[in-house]
């Protein structure tokens, strides 16, 4: 283990020494940037290790996805791109693609077809493929609550979150405008399919902030994904927005009395982009993408983490949690009962309005 790591390092160094210009016929390693933690573990077990075994190409991991866009931008500007594949949120991938920082990907040419022969472009869930983006998983951000805080009625809807009379207690929300503004509008009665149309208008934005204002005194803000389950466990908050995988982990691995409120869940996909001018062999990247996003591999990933595969053909292949044996299907954001009132997060909207809404949100938050 140790020696292979050192070899990899030596290889990386010599690769650097040879310079980015020398196109290598045989790539024997790929540098992959992801989120680290449980998420990278799931990728590792579901497809990185099988891929290494199958091809002999070594995967070098860097856990820097949180600075993914900024990192690619600076590498491309510096003309020295060492990242070969980067795991990114769809909205960021959109920005990177717009700015020409990542390669356009011909989906049907590069990606595997479904077992029944459906081409890739039709197998991925609608609206999740991007020009430069191949989704892997679909995850949800939604409200969850601590059962013990509500011995009687449980909150059922987004509107209940705003009902501090019936459901008193602190709410923990993420300190970003994304999703919070959407939920504010939903709580104010905007139908889920019109949320983004309303939010694109000045009146709609005023309305969303006014609705958030109502809840302001009952909110504490989180910034890292690990915080909301902790806040629920400590009873610092009775209801919190969180990533569904984190809550699943608390429920199953830590036995916490948390319940996910699937109403108004906002789902978003996470997937791969390929930085332009990277120093790896394009064939190796193609091979990796083809392998890592095929139906079986994506279904396998759900054994290790409660995020849903982004391919329709993977859904029936999802089995049980590798460590606890829990059936993963009911924990998937995409399972029919959970998906009823789901809202798809709109990366294009946020690419258009993000700058301005983020500033307004910061200003609102600072008051």
């Amino acid at each position: 283990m140790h020696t292979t790591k050192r070899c990899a390092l030596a290889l990386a160094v010599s690769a650097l020494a040879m310079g980015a210009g020398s196109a290598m016929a045989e790539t024997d390693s790929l540098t992959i940037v992801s989120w680290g933690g449980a998420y990278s573990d799931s990728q590792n077990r579901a497809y990185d290790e099988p891929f290494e075994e199958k091809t002999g190409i070594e995967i070098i991991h860097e856990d820097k996805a949180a600075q993914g866009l900024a990192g690619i931008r600076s590498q491309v500007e510096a003309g020295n791109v060492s990242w070969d594949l980067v795991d990114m949120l769809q909205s960021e991938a959109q920005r990177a693609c717009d700015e020409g920082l990542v390669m356009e990907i011909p989906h049907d040419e590069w990606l595997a077809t479904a077992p029944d022969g459906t081409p890739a472009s039709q197998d991925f869930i609608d609206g999740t493929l991007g020009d430069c983006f191949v989704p892997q998983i679909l995850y949800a951000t939604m409200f969850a609550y601590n059962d013990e805080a509500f011995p009687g009625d449980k909150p059922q809807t987004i509107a209940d979150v705003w009902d501090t009379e019936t459901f008193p207690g602190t709410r923990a929300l993420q300190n970003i405008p994304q999703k919070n503004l959407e939920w504010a509008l939903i709580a104010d009665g905007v139908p889920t399919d019109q949320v983004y149309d309303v939010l694109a208008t000045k009146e709609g934005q005023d309305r969303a902030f006014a609705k958030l204002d109502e809840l302001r005194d009952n909110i504490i803000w989180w910034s890292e994904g690990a915080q909301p389950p902790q806040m629920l466990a400590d009873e610092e908050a009775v209801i919190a927005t969180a990533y569904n995988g984190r809550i699943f982990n608390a429920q199953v691995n830590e036995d916490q009395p948390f319940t996910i409120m699937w109403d108004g869940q906002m789902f978003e996909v996470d997937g791969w982009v390929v930085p332009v001018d990277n120093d790896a062999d394009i064939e190796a990247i193609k091979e990796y993408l083809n392998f890592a996003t095929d139906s079986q591999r994506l279904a396998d990933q759900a054994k290790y983490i409660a995020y849903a595969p982004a391919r329709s053909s993977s859904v029936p292949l999802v089995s049980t949690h590798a460590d606890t044996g829990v059936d993963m299907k009911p924990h998937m954001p995409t399972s029919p009962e959970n998906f009823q009132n789901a809202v798809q997060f709109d990366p294009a909207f946020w690419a258009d309005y993000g700058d301005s809404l983020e500033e307004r949100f910061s200003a609102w938050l600072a008051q």
Partner: protein
Amino acid sequence: MTDATMDRPAAKASDDGELTTADGTPLAVSLRRSHAQARRRAFYLVLPLLAFLVITFLVPIATMMTRSVQNYEVADYLPTTTAAIADWDGTGLPDEAVYAAMAEDMVVGSENRTIGRVAARINREIPGVRSQMMGTARDIDEMSPPWKEALIAEDEGWANEEFWRLVKRETRTLTPIYYLLSFDFEYNSHGEIVERPEEYQVYRLMFLRTAWMSLLITTLCIVLGYPVAYMLANLPLRYSNLLMILVLLPFWTSLLVRTSAWIVLLQQQGVVNDMLVWAGVIADDGRFRMIYNQIGTIVAMTHILLPFMILPLYSVMKTIPKSYMRAARSMGASPLRSFVSVYMPLTVPGLAAGVLLVFILAIGYYITPALVGGDTGIFISNLIARAMQGSTAELKLALALSTILLVAVLIFYWLFNKLVGVDRLKFG
């Protein structure tokens, strides 16, 4: 002291009164020559460090400052439009020539995949333009002249006068816009500088908040650190060693651990609140909110920065002999008076160094406010960090904010130097 100079052997004076050495070289020249060699040698010794500083410090800062005013997107990625729009007077919609130029730039831009960069830039000012330009660029191959009609038919955003005025304005390659934004000003659609709408004003508030909270933290560090440093400097060695370890302990634990410890202590279901409830000071439903707000930031940062106050104070106090205070008291001064008029002035170099360290560290602090600051307890650096993750335009705003922060620190340093004299400081 005064007579000593007269005793030195005098150099020979030449006829015109200039001093020379034995061989007739002017003394000043000879002196300079002998010093120059020593200086050159010293310079070679510091050269590696100098190079390191230039590469890792000065160059990035200079880059940061240049990029915060650079505005090449429109000029570089819409070159034809830039040329064509120069003749437009800014009223009504531009004529067909400008639209045609735009179409031409879009063809090239979508080929080179650079159109997104200019789209993002203009989108910073008019939300929605990104979609308009990207959508049009995608379809540009299937469109045909006359371009004005074709573009407007594709997206009515092309019929927005404000958009065109903005394009014309942003053809300049240098812009103060990010600095204007940093002070909550912006251009209106006629190119005049105006204050931003109230719901967008945040940066002035955050700069001021960062300054006063840093000041408060510095003050708390003085109030808490001074007695500790005094004890450290005056206790017998075996006790002071133990105390010193307690002071240094925070340095040996990770910042995140320390910050998390404060969360455990201060949160509503935390140790402090539990104890207050248990002691009957507050009711169970009246628990204080001491974290995820300004209190949390102030408490945690005071704790984290305290050693930076204590150590310079301690190093100065240790050099103050006991006899000063004794002398003052033997002359009739009360213990308090001796302390205030004799001891405290002697600690000024350490105090000033502590203040400088703590304040400058505090003003740029990031991680602790991010974790415990909640909404009102965050600093300007947290907004900078957030902006750095955003679009290129946001990145430039972050650079402008950072530059302002840097200048503010330099101004503080300059003022401080005027007041105290940095050459008098003792850091330990």
